[in-house]
């Protein structure tokens, strides 16, 4: 008994009481969902083709990878490695769209935030583009680029760019003028002002923009892969559903959420901690 107590005290010291509490409370709905899911496989309220047993979903990982010769083959994109190919295809598109879309969105956002003339040109079309749901472009993109890589990339790029553009522009406008004047009166150039004032000063908005881009971007990407793609998790879900392989659909949906959560946890949260939290720009309940 004392051993268990010591263990629990050690865990509380390591992670902090509040964090453990939050984690436990947040886990409860998931645990309930898993229990219900498992009950269904015992009592068969829904047929396995409608809701497959947990073991089948787990098994689908190995089934989809059964022709894969090994880890290196999976990295190289061997034809047999279906699951890892779909995952890397989706993740690859997200990374590519981010690498291109984020600097462009932030760059134009800063210019428009700084300059009334540029924002007069770009703001109305930004509002227009943001009001059109990203997936509404899919049919048109298929006409332009055909089914495949370019269509999915275009859809995601289009979603990311306008969100980041808008958020960055708003963030730059909210930067106190006196910070800019301070750098100017110390002899700072326009580039100094952009890099040392506007960019860090709009970081709160930029991170919001990144978070929205990731959310909306992933959704748009999955939809684009379903309709206009030839690979990726969205494509896999769509094809599997047509063949009534529901366990593969479940696996795809779960993987999408896990990847999305992972990018938030390991990319955006650290970025947030490293920048705006350290600078005291986040409101925190005390």
């Amino acid at each position, binding site marked *: 008994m004392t051993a268990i107590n010591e263990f629990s005290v050690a865990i509380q010291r390591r992670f902090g009481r509040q964090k453990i509490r939050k984690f436990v409370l947040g886990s409860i709905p998931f645990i309930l969902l898993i229990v219900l899911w498992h009950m269904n496989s015992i009592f068969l309220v829904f047929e396995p083709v409608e809701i497959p047993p947990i073991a089948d979903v787990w098994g689908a990982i190995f089934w989809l990878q059964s022709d894969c010769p090994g880890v290196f083959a999976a990295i190289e994109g061997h034809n047999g490695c279906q699951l890892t190919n779909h995952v890397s295809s989706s993740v690859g598109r997200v990374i590519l769209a981010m690498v291109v879309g984020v600097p462009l969105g932030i760059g134009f956002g800063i210019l428009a935030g700084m300059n009334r003339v540029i924002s007069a040109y770009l703001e109305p079309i930004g509002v227009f583009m943001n009001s059109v749901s990203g997936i509404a472009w899919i049919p048109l993109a298929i006409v332009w680029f055909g089914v495949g890589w370019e269509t999915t990339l275009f859809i995601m790029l289009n979603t990311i760019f306008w969100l980041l553009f808008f958020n960055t522009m708003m963030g730059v406008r909210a930067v*106190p003028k*006196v*910070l800019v*004047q*301070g*750098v*100017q*009166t*110390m*002899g*700072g150039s326009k580039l*100094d002002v952009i890099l*040392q*004032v506007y960019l*860090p*000063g709009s*970081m709160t908005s930029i991170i919001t923009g990144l978070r929205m881009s990731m959310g909306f971007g992933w959704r748009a990407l999955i939809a684009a892969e379903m309709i206009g793609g030839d690979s990726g998790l969205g494509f896999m879900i769509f094809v599997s559903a047509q063949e009534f392989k529901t366990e593969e659909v479940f696996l795809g949906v779960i993987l999408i959420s896990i990847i999305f959560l992972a990018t938030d946890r390991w990319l955006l949260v650290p970025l947030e901690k490293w*920048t705006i939290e*350290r*600078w*005291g*720009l986040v409101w925190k309940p005390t």
Partner: protein
Amino acid sequence: MTGDAKLIVQGLSHHYPDEYTGESVHALQDINLQIHDNEFVTIVGPSGCGKTTFLNIIAGLLPYREGRAMVDGVEIKGPGPDRGVVFQEHAILPWRTVNRNIGHGLELRKVPKAEREKRVQEYIDLVGLSGFEERYPHELSGGMKQRVAVARTLCADPVIMLMDEPFAAVDAQTRITLQDELNRVVMATRRTILFITHSVEEAAFLGDRCIVFSRRPGQIKTEIKIDIPREERLWKDMVNNPKFTDARDEILSLVRSEVTNDDNS
């Protein structure tokens, strides 16, 4: 005559369009002023008299067309490192540590790191921020933030320091401490300073010369010399110094008359 004048202003007037009505506002009228090397000049006047407009013109943040303004013989055209500004609000960057905020001016001028660090440490010690070098502004009190702002401007070593009500936003107790400290720093480093304030006491306490602005359009109404050596300017002594109290009362009545005029019009 203008041999050691650091700042020369001749016949400076300023009009600007009102933000809402678009009507032309007459902010400044024929300002003539010289500030000499190592002189501490304060400007005091009723609110809305154009004193901040004047400082912004000298800082190069506001373009002017009527009259001339020169620093070290060079016409003012836009902001530059020869004029360091301490603003009323906190203008230090939240994303830079105390160290990097104070060294910012030197960094922008590409002063080598070793020399920069040496100078920064000097000013950190001077304004009493030792031990806070790696802190971010949000971890500091209001008074400490203004100390960083003052040290940042001092460290950049401008020809003239422009201070725009720098202590207006801190509490009364801190303000007195900061004023005493500023005196000490000015003694230690010999600076040329133009200091804007709406506080009559502050103007008389800090200035070698105090310039009283009229209400809008801002004109130089009078200039009062306050002939008290810097070493004697400590709050605990000043309250009993007749030179200080006389100057303060004189400035106060001048500013008062401007405010009363304003009420009657």
